[in-house]
């Protein structure tokens, strides 16, 4: 099916084109900073995409999603520190640990609703944050430098910044594609039904808990992968990645772009980090503009940027 030529689709297409051309642009102007910034954008967009799966489609407002960024990163960092550099070991293990932790957190948290869910996910993320702080051997508060990125033999060299960027971009697009398939499948219908009206779901015969839990685990795993990439990108991991304000940032990215829309988190992340760059270029005190801007978005543009582009407002 040909996507319709709407303003929203055009913007998304241009955005994707731009993302593909970033390394070319960086090479032409010889500016590594742009490439680094966009690598960060792409990685965080992946984290935001995973949060959108549970928050936008599943109605599970997790205020602890940054924990998985830290978990993925710490698995890579700790293994590297202990001399295990193979990505074939690091990455699957990181995903496994993320999934397991998401399973436990989800199992316990998904019994609660509304603000209690927000708070219990925050509590678990805080626990994980303090685990990071107490990791004496691995730098505790100060974090852990990762001296060598994950090794994939001759397959791919992550130390090449352009190669690494394209890997991140491909994985981001794969995540978005995965979310697209998921939300339109039976599983996705069940998840969205549970967001919309959980009581009705039970009445028509859905045991929603298991679907919501599965969704929670999938999102945690994708975000864990983003954490793996982030640690490889910055060559560093510290508890700061998991601070609750980072979880807040992720929520902002998702809502800024448009909750429950496929490319919303990507748009939101680009907007968030671009705004950060732009505003901090204008004034050192850029958050004095950004904070009220957030407030204004909540008050006046609830569908996020995606909603504005699509010309519809969610009530």
């Amino acid at each position: 099916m040909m996507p319709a030529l709407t303003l929203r689709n055009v913007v998304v297409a241009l955005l994707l084109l731009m993302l593909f051309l970033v390394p070319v642009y960086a090479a032409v102007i010889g500016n590594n900073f742009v490439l680094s910034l966009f690598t960060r954008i792409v990685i965080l967009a992946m984290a935001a995409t995973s949060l959108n799966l549970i928050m936008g489609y599943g109605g599970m407002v997790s205020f602890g999603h940054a924990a998985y960024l830290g978990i993925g990163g710490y698995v890579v960092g700790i293994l590297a520190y202990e001399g295990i550099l193979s990505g074939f070991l690091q990455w699957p293990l990181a995903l496994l640990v993320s999934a397991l932790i998401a399973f436990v957190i989800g199992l316990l948290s998904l019994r609660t609703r509304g603000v209690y869910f927000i708070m219990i996910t925050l509590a678990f993320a805080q626990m994980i944050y303090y685990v990071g702080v107490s990791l004496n051997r691995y730098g505790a508060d100060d974090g852990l430098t990762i001296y060598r990125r994950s090794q994939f033999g001759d397959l791919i060299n992550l130390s090449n910044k352009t190669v690494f960027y394209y890997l991140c971009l491909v994985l981001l697009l794969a995540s978005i594609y995965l979310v697209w398939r998921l939300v339109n499948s039976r599983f996705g219908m069940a998840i969205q039904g549970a967001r919309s009206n959980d009581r009705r779901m039970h009445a028509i015969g859905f045991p929603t808990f298991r679907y919501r839990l599965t969704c929670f685990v999938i999102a945690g795993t994708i975000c864990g992968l983003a954490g793996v990439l982030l640690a490889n990108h910055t060559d560093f991991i510290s508890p700061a990645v998991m601070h609750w304000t980072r979880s807040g940032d992720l929520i902002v990215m998702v809502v800024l772009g448009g909750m429950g829309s496929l490319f919303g988190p990507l748009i939101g992340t680009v907007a968030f980090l671009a705004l950060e760059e732009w505003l901090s270029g204008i004034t050192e005190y850029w958050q004095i503009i950004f904070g009220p801007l957030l407030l204004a978005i909540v008050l006046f543009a609830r569908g996020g940027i995606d909603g504005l582009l699509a010309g519809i407002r969610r009530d």
Partner: protein
Amino acid sequence: MLLFVEQFLNGLQFGLLLFLLAAGLTLVFGIMDLVNLAHGSFYMLGAYFAATFTALTGSFIGGVVLALAATLLVGMAVEVIAMRRLYRRDHLDHVLATFGLILFFNELVRLIWGPAGMNLTLPSWLNTSVEILPDVQYSMYRLSIIVVALAVAIALYLIVMRTRVGMLIRAGASNREMISALGINIKLLYTFVFGVGAALAGLAGLMQAAILTAQIGMGENILILAFVVIIIGGIGSIRGAFIAAIFVGLIDTVGRAFLPDLLKLALSPAAAATAAPALSSMLIYLVMAIILVVRPAGLFPAPGSR
């Protein structure tokens, strides 16, 4: 024994600070159904105001009074400008909007006072210690925090339980329609409650600032603890917040004091010293998580709350 008494009092003092912070949060949450992440900003503002006004007036008490008035005004202004537009929105919107306010206030403080942080100097009559038990010395200042916070707690309790305003507040917490049906100027009541909550947070912040310093972001970690308190205590319940705050304060402080020794049995002293504060911080969240798993709506859910 001596150490234990001191740590117990420290825990009590910290718990009471938490209560001051949590009181406004739980009232706003209970009455307006508003999740206010920016509550920690009032805590920070109280500290900065106090440091500034004390330096300006040369009087600690004068500085504190001015700081409380200033925080009250800022709180009321925030309510009028932003918060009242958010009451009917969902909790996610609250989280986002007030997250934006945190960024704003942090940056505002950095703009006005600079990034370095400020000290609040105590007058000499507070900067001493007293003998609370035979041969047990305790900081005069910490003791006065306990006294002041207890006095505020009692006053708050009496206001909420015994006065007409308190009756309206309680009615609002359990039944929002009823209070507007009574024809009360509900907007004014909300603004007032929000402002008082902000001032209480400011009081907590300025009292803490004399022990540590006034710093940007100082409200953020303690805010999360205050949320733990109101979740454990039951949203909207002053009494629940009081019990939970003391409980959390004691766990945190006593954990920090005694976990290192416990951990030394298993770890090296250096490792124990780093791990202990982290573990005692974790302990609080663990307790909250357990409580929510067992009682998904908190320990003492307020009647009529969702």
